């Protein structure tokens, strides 16, 4: 069998650096997706019809088309329209953040709707404003219900992040390709970054389990 891991040893720091590069835009994308997703979820459950339509249309479009297409449109398409050269990082954050917001808004909407209506009524009866009611009473309870689904979304995003290699962003995946091309052997480099992806996902999984356990304290 033609396997020789010693050859990738000089490239290991280069590949490990990719973890940070990947994490950087994954974390920003998760934040963008989470904040925007929460806003859209509030639109969906709100009383203002036009906002509801906007949120529903948004979700439908971003869930109904391939993520890689969205990335291509942002990176290659937008500069053609606006004459502004968008960086790979910004494209990646936009594509993943906007895409994730669509999924997250559905998760959060379902989570909010699953909170007992009595919680809303009890806080209304105490004179608590809509804003405080959402932030202090409803969202924390919704979050507890949806944490597993949310963690799942973050894990998917982390793995799917590999497609930014297609726009030349030097993430983990792209670095494996670079090393493979340099050495004329691909298996070892891909296997190595595969391991790194797996470790990242496992870390997220463990964090998720911890959070879940902490939130369950009151059960």
């Amino acid at each position, binding site marked *: 069998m033609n396997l020789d891991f010693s050859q990738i040893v000089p490239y290991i720091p280069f590949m490990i650096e990719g973890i940070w590069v990947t994490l950087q835009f994954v974390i920003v994308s998760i934040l963008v997706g989470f904040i925007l997703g929460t806003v859209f979820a509030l639109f969906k459950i709100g009383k203002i019809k036009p906002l509801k339509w906007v949120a529903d249309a948004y979700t439908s479009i971003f869930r109904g088309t391939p993520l890689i297409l969205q990335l291509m449109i942002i990176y290659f398409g937008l500069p053609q329209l606006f004459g502004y050269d968008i960086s790979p990082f910004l494209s990646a954050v936009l594509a993943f953040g906007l895409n994730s917001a669509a999924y997250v808004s559905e998760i959060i909407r379902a989570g909010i709707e699953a909170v007992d209506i009595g919680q809303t009524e009890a806080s209304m009866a*105490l004179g608590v404003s809509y804003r405080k009611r959402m932030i202090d009473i409803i969202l924390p309870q919704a979050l507890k219900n949806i944490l597993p689904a949310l963690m799942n979304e973050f894990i998917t995003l982390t793995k799917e992040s590999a497609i930014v290699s297609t726009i030349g962003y030097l993430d983990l995946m792209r670095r494996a390709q670079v090393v493979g091309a340099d050495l004329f052997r691909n298996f070892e480099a891909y296997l190595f970054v595969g391991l790194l992806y797996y470790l990242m996902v496992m870390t997220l999984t463990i964090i998720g389990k911890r959070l879940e356990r902490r939130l369950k304290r009151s059960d």
Partner: protein
Amino acid sequence: MIKIEYLAKSFDKNEVLQNINLDIKKGEVVSIIGPSGSGKSTLLRCVNLLEQPTEGKIFVNGDELTAPKANITKAREKIGMVFQHFHLFPHFTVLENITYAPIKVKQLSKQEAQAKGRELLERVGLADKENDYPNRLSGGQKQRVAIARALAMEPELMLFDEPTSALDPEMVKEVLDVMKDLAHSGMTMLVVTHEMGFAKEVADRVIFLDEGKLIETGDPKTFFERPETARAQDFLAKIL
């Protein structure tokens, strides 16, 4: 202190309340009784606008709650409500449940709110439970915390919607005792209840609702011993 004029409420085509007129004085304890589905909860929930009346006016202390530009959120601070199923905040401790609204709505300092909260817990007999989460409490204890939570806002009026119906029989008394105490302290109370004992003993006035209409009203003694209307007689014959 509360005046209800020509109140009506429909859900779509279903007329749940019709032409309700009611005047409740400060310190009065009024029991609302009637068969299931007669509109008792809906009437109570109209008073703090958890339900929007279809017609009619509601005044609290002379201010019209149903006015188009009335500040409902503000008005609700003065109206406490206790629900059949407690609706405590499960992610807060007992004390946090009680101090949340005073801190966030009335802008009390944390120390002040906690001191007051502990006083209230003492009053409902749960001083040792302040750090427990609601899921650790029995039904009767939960309801007493819910009462303390409402009282923490220093309301001028308390609404109770069947506060003991979800409780095991042995826990009914501890909650009724707290309510009796409250009645004797001069609180204005509007109480939907199936506890005829409470209505007889504590209420200043009983209101009988049937099919969304106010059929009969009177002092408890007269109402229970010599009800005037046939419908009230029927209802009392069934439950007593």
